[in-house]
Every structure is written in C-alpha cells, then in structure tokens.
C-alpha cells in the first residue's frame, strides 16, 4: 500500500469548496517561482497592514521574499515555507519600525505576534475589525478618525467639521490613535 508521507493540506481550517479533479494538492514547493506566486500577495498584505503605505510594503515584501528564498533548499514543504515567510516578515517589519522610527515598542509587539496565516485577497475582516474598534472609542475620538480615515478629510476639513482648531484636531487624532492602539491590544486582542 502506498503511504503518502508529508502531504500537506493547502488550505488549513477546511476548504468549503469541493476539491476539483484536476487540481493537485500542492504540498511541496520545488522552486522559488512557486513560492513567489503562492505567497507574494499575502506577504505584501501582511506588510501593508503594518506599514500603511504601498512603497514600504513593497520593500518589506521584497526583503521578506529575498531573505526567505535565499535560505530555502528545494523541495520544501508548503507549510514550512509559509511559517518561515511569516516569521521572517515579523522580523523584517520589526527592523522597519526600529530603523525608520526608533520604535522599540512596536517592533517588540510585532516580534511577539502569535503565529498567523497569510491573509486572503479580501480585507473584509480587517475592515470589520476597524469598524468594531471605532465603535469602542469615545465620540470625539471616533469622529476624528472616521473623518480622516474613512472619509479622507484633511486635518483642516476635519477641524472645520468638528468645530475645533486645526491644532486641536491634530491632538484629538493623536489621542484617538493611541486609544485605538490600546483598545486593539487590550480588548480585541
């Protein structure tokens, strides 16, 4: 009897879709191209969610892929490669926050994140999480973040809308973001 060793399910947690006949279980990567094609979008998304801009996300994603692929020996099991990619991404992101903003605290938090899966194509979950987060904030804090991040208002426009000075709007935004970070850590986990 043929015993299959090391065949790894591509979609952990159960695939709601029936398996189609001509789609093989991609258990093993045999070259860097396959690793790239399968994971570059997920790594980019993971990076973007931590740096918030496309230029840095591109640099981080590239650095993660290079660091991972340079040390990989093929063939390599899919789940090992993905775990390694995520682990490397945490290190590269922590380095980014340290080198760009001297931010030891954010870097440490990133390094201590629990193991996670690479994200799918939709950021619906992140959007829902952000909505929940905004819902937990006091009114003034929620309002300034909604105006800035959801409606794209400038600081001046947000200040006019809220009837405060620009300087006050900046302080409100700063305090609201700190509160959001605190809630994210303490309430949403």
């Amino acid at each position, binding site marked *: 009897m043929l015993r299959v*060793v090391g065949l790894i399910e591509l979609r952990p947690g159960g695939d709601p879709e029936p398996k189609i006949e001509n789609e093989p279980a991609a258990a*093993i990567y045999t070259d860097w191209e396959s690793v790239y094609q399968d994971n570059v979008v997920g790594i980019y998304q993971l990076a973007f969610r931590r740096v918030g801009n496309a230029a840095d996300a591109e640099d981080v994603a590239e650095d993660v892929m290079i660091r991972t692929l340079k040390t990989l020996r093929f*063939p390599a099991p899919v789940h090992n490669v993905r775990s390694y990619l995520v682990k490397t991404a945490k290190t590269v992101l922590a380095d980014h926050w340290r080198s760009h*903003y001297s931010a030891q605290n954010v870097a440490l938090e990133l390094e201590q994140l629990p193991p996670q899966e690479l994200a799918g194509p939709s950021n619906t979950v992140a959007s829902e999480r952000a909505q929940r987060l905004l819902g937990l904030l006091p009114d003034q804090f929620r309002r300034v973040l909604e105006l800035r*991040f959801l409606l*794209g208002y400038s600081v001046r426009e947000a200040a006019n809308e809220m009837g405060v000075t620009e*300087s006050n709007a900046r302080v409100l935004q700063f305090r609201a973001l700190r509160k959001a970070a605190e809630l994210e850590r303490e309430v949403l986990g």
Partner: protein
Amino acid sequence: MTSSAADRVARFVDDLLRGRRPRRFKASPDEAEAMAAAAGLVAARAGADLPDKAALDRIHQRLSARLDESPRIEARFTRRAWLRTFSTAAAAAFVGVALDEVLTRQGPTGPVATGPAVLTPDGGQWRPVAAVTQLPEGHAILVSTGSVDAVVVNDGGQISAVSGICTHLGCRLQPDDADKRLSCPCHQTAFSWSGKVLYYRLKAAPPDLPSIESRVRDGQIELFVV
C-alpha cells in the same frame, strides 16, 4: 510636547492617506503606537492592501535578478538527495506540483487573456434563476442551472451575469459584496463583478470571465443558458 508629537503623527497620517512613503524620524513610544494604529486603519479601507501589478512585477524582477544568479548545482543536488530519502511518496507529490506548473503557466510571460467573451450556448434558452427581489442593489449571488454556474450581480440597479467558475483551474468563485469582487478560493485570483481580472498571483493572467446574457421578465432574472 504633546502638540509636537501630535504634529509629527499628523504628518505621518497625511503621508499614509495620500499614498506617500512617510519620512523617517525618531518617534517616542506613544507616537509609534499611534502610528502603528494609523497604518492598520489605512489598510482596513476596501482594497487598500492589495498590491498593483506593477509592484508585483518589480518585486518579481528584482527577485529574478538576485536568485537566478545562484549556482544551480546546489539545488539539483539537494533535490536528488531529497528524492532518495522520500522515494515514492515524494515523487507522487512532485507529479502534483509539476501538473500545477503546467496548468498554471500557459505561456512564458505576459497575460493570456483575450477580449471579453460571451457565453452563448447552442440550444440555449432563457431560464429564470432568481426573483429580482432576491437580489438587492450592491449584491451578487451564485446560481446554478445544472449545466452552468453563474454569478448574477445587481450593481446600482443594473443586473448582469458572468460565469461563476474561475478561468484558471475551475474553482467556484465566491461573491464578495463588500469589495465588489469575485474571489477564487483556490489561488486567490479576484475578478470584478463585470468579470475582469483584478489581480492574480500566477505566472500569467487568467482570461476574464465570460459574461452571460441576462434579462428581467415578470420580476424574474433570466439567463440565456442550457
């Protein structure tokens, strides 16, 4: 003190919201915490965290330059050694991956997509698939006529339909109303509601989804299918 921290964070947020790379600066722990929260909020906006094709092309190009210059002999040796170790089971897995490569890589480079196709089956007829009331504005539903899986979309009161099967390897697409897209659960290809490929992580672009003729009669959405 707080005011200048607020100013620095505001500049950082401005850069993020305008899609610019923020300048480096020495942030206090409080500032950094606020900035990390801002990055998360920017990324939560619909579609914000998706890379564009040009970015992926640049990454791929630079990876090629860095990785393809490595000596090949080492990889071949490692592969041979591995095959010796895992024998038959490993070979079976290789066949799977190799098949995927063949199926995925339709051409050496560049998209294989052609112009928009319309599914007009021989012997087709108008078949009701859903009541109009079942499909509110801004929603998409998967329907099946037995022979054809389709996604019917109500985009601003305009009803249309496209094939519900991914053109890559045939997985059934999942409508995503929030992002107005159809996502393939197998390889993360995403299509717009009109069937255009929005992005893919394959060597070559899969073709756009064929559209399916649709109409509304007596409160029923009908598709021209078999």
